[in-house]
């Protein structure tokens, strides 16, 4: 946790204005990342020292406005109103002054002391546009400090100003006029609230404005008041009156007024010299990246390299980690034997604890490298283009264009795929993507297919594996359709996304981002994975004295008990049931379990003759296929469930996920096996 501080800054701003860059520049690695209480939106806090002060800075979620219509926006205004930071810093992209100032106006209305950090002035000047910051500051009556977040320039002055200005009672002395008619109505509303409250005229103004805007939170607050009923009547009258006069929706009237003020301001402070007709780099690259025909092939090429790079680079590191843990576990067991420790203790420490920790850590290089590349794509600005080109297709299964990225990551490993759903802004989009992503066949399932196709379909191995992958994609699409139809009827969030200019990523930001991801995985998912590894170990080793995972062990007994469930699917031998139970820890463990259970030693290098024979005794080609289908679709591994728990902030969704996937797996494998028999493949 962040230690005590005596000065709190809330950092806010539109998306893509350099907010994270400034935050990282201020705090470095002294950050604390968590979720906002009860929300799935990330909360970042950091500490830094400035002169004699220890300053806490809270990174508020990037948003375009302060109304309470998205989770992010509500968080920002809640924070400002309830946690009472000493000062708000709004970072503004000078190239996009008008849109950014919209939020400034709302912050001014809210009234907490405010400093504007004007970023990217140099980029604006490159476009032959100049900005009069002194005038801007004067017209808004808010201090404006020019900074270069990327080069960490102007930051000391920013913090100095922030501390100085925090004594101010209000953000600005300017009182915005919303038009004569609107002001009159605001006045009428104020009369009601004024009756018994002892509130400042400023807060009164803000309350009346929020009420006119139909801000749900403020409305709720006032329902307790005795004048609530009459106030409601007055509100309705005011809204009707204004909408009649302007022939516009009430929000449009207010937005129009705010933008009117801003546009006037822009004319005063911005001077455009010559319009540059040359195509910028962004425009040139977008001609390809967002082309109807070239966009998708380009994206697939990029993804191909991302995958190649990830797996090529992480495979040796993963092997290395496995080796180290193998050696470590051997050393430990040698020592323990030397000291005369009981067999169960040795097995517990090596198989459950060291094996479990090793299992968690082998994921680290994979997640680290994948997220490094994804963060680069996001930082450069390419991700929003991907969302753009994939939107048409993804929309058909009720998803946002951006959801394609987590899904495709799932082919490598579902864990980073699910973690990457954070790029989706809409909560329901995220949930839907999380729910269908386990059907995407991850890398860990491949060894299972390799084993079975090697034994049963040696001639058509590639084709059979391909069909399994396609089945997974098909199931994800079908599940998407069904969820959209029945569970999230109204979600399909409208597609609106900003396309920022391309820019160089900041290495510091990317590294911090990757570190956060990896660390939060190890901390949160790691404990769950370890916990389940230990449970499985206990089940496989008890009652005392049985051979590990043999038919007499608890897990063997469970395997025998549940195996009849799989009889209609064609595989009712207890070994495959136990293998499936072990597959819950990690899907590739299924292969190793068969090796252990059928008593073969080296299955890693080549399929042992005896294992192949044993499998052929217990499976037919058809039941082997049904088994692969079941492995593809059934309960995702513990690591996936752990990240789902972490991302959805409740146990409800991982439990739902585990049960519905297993039911679907059973049904589909049943159809495959029984259908195959009817068609004469049995």
């Amino acid at each position: 946790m962040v230690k005590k501080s005596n000065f709190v800054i809330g950092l806010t701003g539109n998306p893509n204005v350099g907010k994270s860059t400034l935050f990282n520049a201020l705090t470095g690695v002294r950050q604390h990342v968590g979720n906002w209480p009860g929300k799935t939106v990330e909360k970042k806090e950091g500490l830094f020292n400035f002169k004699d002060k220890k300053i806490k800075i809270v990174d508020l979620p990037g948003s375009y406005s302060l109304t309470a219509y998205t989770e992010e926006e509500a968080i920002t205004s809640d924070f400002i109103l309830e946690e009472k930071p000493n000062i708000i810093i709004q970072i503004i992209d000078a190239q996009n002054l008008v849109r950014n100032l919209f939020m400034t106006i709302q912050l001014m209305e809210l009234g907490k002391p405010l400093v504007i950090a004007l970023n990217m002035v140099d980029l604006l000047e490159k476009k032959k546009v100049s900005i009069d910051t002194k005038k801007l500051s004067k017209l808004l009556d808010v201090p404006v400090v020019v900074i270069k977040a990327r080069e960490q320039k102007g930051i000391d002055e920013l913090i100095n100003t922030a501390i100085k200005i925090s004594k101010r009672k209000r953000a600005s002395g300017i009182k915005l006029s919303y038009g004569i008619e609107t002001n009159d109505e605001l006045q009428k509303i104020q009369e009601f609230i004024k009756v018994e409250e002892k509130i400042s005229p400023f807060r009164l103004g803000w309350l009346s404005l929020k009420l006119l805007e139909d801000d749900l939170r403020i409305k709720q607050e006032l329902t307790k008041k005795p004048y609530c009923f009459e106030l409601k009547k007055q509100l309705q009258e005011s809204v009707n009156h204004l909408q009649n006069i302007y022939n516009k929706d009430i929000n449009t009237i207010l937005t129009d007024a705010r933008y009117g003020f801003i546009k006037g301001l822009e004319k005063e402070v911005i001077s455009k010299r010559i319009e540059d007709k040359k195509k910028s780099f962004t425009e040139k690259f977008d001609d390809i990246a967002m082309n109807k025909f070239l966009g998708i092939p380009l994206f697939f090429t990029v993804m191909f390299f991302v995958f190649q790079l990830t797996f090529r680079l992480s495979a040796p590191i993963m092997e290395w980690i496995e080796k180290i843990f193998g050696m470590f576990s051997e050393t430990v067991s040698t020592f323990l034997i030397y000291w005369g420790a009981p067999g169960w203790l040795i097995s517990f420490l090596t198989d459950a604890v060291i094996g479990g920790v090793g299992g968690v850590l082998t994921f680290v290089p994979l997640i680290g490298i994948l997220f490094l590349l994804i963060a680069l794509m996001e930082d450069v600005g390419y991700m929003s283009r991907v969302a753009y080109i994939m939107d048409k297709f993804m929309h058909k299964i009720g998803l946002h264009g951006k959801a394609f990225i987590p899904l495709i990551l799932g082919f490598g490993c579902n864990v980073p795929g699910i973690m990457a759903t954070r790029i989706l802004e809409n909560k329901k989009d995220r949930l839907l993507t999380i729910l269908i992503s386990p059907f995407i066949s991850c890398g860990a399932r491949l060894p299972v297919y390799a084993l079975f196709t090697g034994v049963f379909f040696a001639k058509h191995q590639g084709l059979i594996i391909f069909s399994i992958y396609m089945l997974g994609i098909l199931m994800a699409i079908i599940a998407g359709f069904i969820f959209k139809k029945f569970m999230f009827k109204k979600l399909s969030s409208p597609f609106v996304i900003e396309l920022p200019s391309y820019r160089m990523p900041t290495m510091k930001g990317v590294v911090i981002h990757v570190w956060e991801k990896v660390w939060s995985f190890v901390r949160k998912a790691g404990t769950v994975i370890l916990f389940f590894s230990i449970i499985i170990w206990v089940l496989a080793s008890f009652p005392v004295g049985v051979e590990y995972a043999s038919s007499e062990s608890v897990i063997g007994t469970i395997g025998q008990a549940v195996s009849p469930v799989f009889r209609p699917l064609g595989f009712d031998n207890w070994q495959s049931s136990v293998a499936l139970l072990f597959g819950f820890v990690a899907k590739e463990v299924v292969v190793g379990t068969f090796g252990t259970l059928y008593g073969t030693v080296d299955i890693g290098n080549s399929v042992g003759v005896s294992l192949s024979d044993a499998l052929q005794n217990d499976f037919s080609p058809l039941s082997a296929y049904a088994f692969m289908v079941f492995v593809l679709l059934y309960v995702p591994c513990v690591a996936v469930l752990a990240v789902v728990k972490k991302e959805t902030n409740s146990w409800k969704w991982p439990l739902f996920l585990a049960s519905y996937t297993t039911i679907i797996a059973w049904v589909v494998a049943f159809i495959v096996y029984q259908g195959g028999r009817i068609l004469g493949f049995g």
Partner: protein
Amino acid sequence: MKSIAEFKKGEKIKITCVQCGKNFSRRISELGLFDGSEIEIVKNDNFCPVIIKIFDSQIALGQGEALKIYGKKI
């Protein structure tokens, strides 16, 4: 008056009517897209989302949404 999905690249439009749901209208109005504002079509291939320029930023808008926003050429 036609929907902005029917305009072509380079055309400058004054928005006359936004017929989206309340929340979505609010959302895009905050971006500067509302009854009375002026925008420019940056790209419209009638397939992928429409890209429009509002003030100095480029915003992509789904075809379905673009069909519900009307305007006239300036």
